[in-house]
């Protein structure tokens, strides 16, 4: 499931963070982790609220990983969403979010959870950037 959102202000900030030390990068990892937890919690809550799809709620999780961008810089990324392994109830998430040929989706789009967390995420990153640069 691909979701995009406006990260233009974050790009400038991430450029600054690449110059920061390991201590700042460790704090950034914490910020990404907290953001992922909050987004996961809202997505689970919205799925649990659905009579038809509440069984999918527990399949929503997140993974955090680092990406080597080369040249000594890197990125921290979080992937949040339903697990779609064979047999997982998460395989029905697409129907929950986007519906079928007979009707539209009935569970709020995950971008809502993302947008709800974005101001806190940006503020937290700006704070540690200010402390470390």
């Amino acid at each position, binding site marked *: 499931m*691909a*979701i*995009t959102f406006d990260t233009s202000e974050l790009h400038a900030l991430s450029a600054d963070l690449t110059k920061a030390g390991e201590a700042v990068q460790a704090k950034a990892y914490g910020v990404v982790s907290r953001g992922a937890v909050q987004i996961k919690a809202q997505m689970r809550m919205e799925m649990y609220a659905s009579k038809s799809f509440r069984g999918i709620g527990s399949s929503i999780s997140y993974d955090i990983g680092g990406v080597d961008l080369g040249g000594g810089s890197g990125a921290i990324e979080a992937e949040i969403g339903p697990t779609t392994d064979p047999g997982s109830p998460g395989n029905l998430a*697409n129907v929950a979010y*986007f*519906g*079928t*040929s*007979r*009707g*539209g*989706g009935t569970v*709020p*789009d995950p*971008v*809502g959870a993302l*947008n*709800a967390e974005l*101001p806190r995420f940006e503020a937290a990153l700006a704070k540690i950037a200010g402390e470390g640069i």
Partner: protein
Amino acid sequence: MLAHITAIKALLTAHTAYDTAAPANPPMPYYLVWGPGGTPGVEQAVDDVRLDIDAMIGVTTVAANPTAVRVAQGQSRGVLAPGGHAVALTVTGRAAWLRLFDSQPIEPDNAVTLPDTGHPCYGVDMYRLISTPSS
């Protein structure tokens, strides 16, 4: 929100557009326009009265085969996202804009079987609706 859904449906003239759910045996292709009842915007008004709307709207295009879905989806984007731009909706008393945000892969709906052509296919485009009072 009804006025916004109605405004979107009015733009989709190439094929019939339904609000959220399709009736029994609808002629194909068709569109489903769906979304929340109305999501308040993220900006907090000084008087705490929240009349702005920031919502995701789905437009599902359904047809007998993937090619027909792509053609009908192109027609819907031609009016809802002309040239990739946002489009203004005609809603009385509101300034409302719709922008193409995301698109899901076209896939067959294996839960539905058509008499002659097998399973219908569908594709979902997600639009972001921003609407504020115009006065």
